[in-house]
């Protein structure tokens, strides 16, 4: 490969990497806010995306409901929010109340991911290939030597906006600080009058909502299968790079992984793309368990 081709690949890799990275970042943020508030890594995060994608597909395409986009987005948002609330209310809260261990709750999220995956498979919606109609134009826009579409830019804009909103929310508003308080020390938070149940409910709902909306944006780019939730693993890798407690870290991690994946795909082998997030997870956890941007290594509470 000569230098000019390599440079083109590099440019395209970085640009595409930033776009896909922002999707990873969105899912990573959704997972991190649950982790910050409840100490649970939500293994059903990817399946929230599956729900968002399948639901909006059903609502959008003419063979089913054929609704216009400006209706589909709010409906999907609400349903995803309710999904998160239900998961929390029916599963997480009862386990917490029964003094369940963290392990039990993580296994429960695994169970939920399987239920959703299985339901998606059972519904048969993915049995025939379907195209997800894009919201924004898919015409190519040239940036230097690389190509972007209007849809890509929309993804980027949405992701950045969501990140800014959440950053402001968690740091500047009372509700956001209440959530961080619950994450740091639930008992103390309850003592100062924070309603734990309501905070947890809101967190789960918001996380699901964010992921569901990300699904609508990324839908045209992805293959809609019941296993599409696997993308959450990449998001976890992103969150780990940033240090799982760290929102800005998760974002940067998302971009890093997105770019890395594209570059490895271009310069190494397409086969190896699948392997990238796993190798990244193992390497980062080995060398620097608190993530590249995390603070000191977490001291385990006795």
């Amino acid at each position: 490969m000569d230098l000019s081709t390599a440079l083109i690949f590099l440019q395209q890799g970085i640009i595409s990497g930033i776009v896909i990275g922002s999707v990873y970042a969105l899912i990573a943020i959704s997972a991190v806010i649950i982790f910050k508030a409840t100490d649970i890594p939500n293994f059903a995060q990817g399946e929230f995306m599956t729900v968002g994608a399948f639901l909006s597909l059903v609502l959008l395409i003419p063979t089913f409901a054929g609704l216009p986009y400006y209706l589909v987005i709010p409906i999907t948002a609400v349903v995803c929010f309710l999904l998160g609330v239900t998961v929390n209310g029916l599963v997480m809260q009862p386990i917490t109340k029964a003094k369940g261990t963290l392990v039990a709750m993580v296994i429960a999220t695994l169970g939920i991911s399987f239920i959703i995956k299985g339901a998606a498979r059972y519904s048969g919606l993915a049995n025939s290939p379907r195209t997800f109609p894009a919201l924004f134009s898919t015409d190519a826009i040239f940036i230097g030597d690389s190509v972007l579409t209007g849809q890509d830019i929309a993804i980027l804009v949405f992701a950045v906006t969501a990140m800014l909103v959440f950053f402001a929310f968690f740091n500047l508003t009372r509700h956001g600080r209440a959530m961080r308080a619950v994450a740091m020390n639930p008992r103390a938070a309850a003592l100062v009058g924070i309603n734990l149940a309501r905070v947890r409910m809101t967190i789960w709902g918001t996380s699901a909502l964010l992921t569901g909306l990300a699904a609508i944006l990324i839908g045209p780019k992805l293959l809609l299968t019941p296993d599409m939730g696997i993308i959450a693993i990449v998001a976890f890798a992103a969150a780990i790079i940033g240090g799982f407690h760290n929102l800005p870290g998760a974002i940067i991690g998302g971009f890093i992984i997105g770019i890395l994946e594209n570059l490895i795909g271009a310069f190494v082998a397409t086969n190896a793309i699948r392997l990238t997030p796993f190798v990244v997870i193992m390497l980062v956890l080995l060398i620097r368990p608190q993530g590249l941007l995390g603070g000191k290594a977490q001291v385990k509470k006795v």
Partner: protein
Amino acid sequence: MTKSSRLLPAFGLLVLAAILLAFPFAASGYQIYIINLVLVWVVMSLGLNILMGETGLFGMAHVAFYGIGIYTTGLLTNNTGVPVLLAIFMAGCLAALIGFILGVLSIRMNDIYLGLSTFAFGEAMQWVFHNWDAVTKGVNGLRISPTTFFGWRIDSDFRAYFVALGIAVAFTVGAVVLSRSRFGRAMRAVRESEPAAAAVGINIRRVKVSAFAISAFYAGCAGGLITIFTSYIHPDTLGFNTTIVILTMLVVGGMGTIPGAIIGAAAIGVLSEFLRQAADRQEMIYGFVLVLFMVFLPDGIYGRIRHAWRRWSAS
């Protein structure tokens, strides 16, 4: 323990042994095959129980060692004259070595990060199974030829049953001995509180790494065992889904207990065969089982039995 209270469990074991030995003569080939599978699951569950149940380490790479065991044993029996028991043992040792390495690498991680990195390792291993064509024949799967056991050709489920039963019993006895030993107590101490365990002089590092190695040995041997009565292995079955099935067995049976691991293996093993007919609903049902047990029966079936037994004998 009084003499009479020791008699009852001994008698129960004899009855159980009689049933287990007589079973294959009275059952159909298909039923024997199911039980053979369950015996493999038992060894796998016992292995994961040692890592997760006794030592409290969130190891999500179990199926990777199972896969290593299958391929190693399959290749050894296909291509060399190594007797099958030795092949299984060697496969187990190779798996244990890799488990040892994984343990050493993971020593600094706790809980969730450990789960994520072992999960990543498991997925990476599956990628290797899929792509290392030279060894595993990749997506074409590997054909395994029937083996002989000390000159006795194993070409039916009936014959495989006795070998499987022997191995499963041996591993169960091993697990019991391990659990009751000082090392077993050390494992549980590490699970409950690392600082406290360190304070009484337990070498945390050694316990954790050994737990990884031992549980990998179990999984590797389970993989070797299944090659006796399976003729074909495909890397699609060696993914995270299978680790989840083993986890479900432990959850359902009772995490941290040996009877629980066995009960869970039997229950889920039989369930998975029934579900084979309703393959499209399989995942959903596993999910529901996991969630329901976590909410209502976090200690599993055996946990609930033990709970009830204690209350009954205290009254």
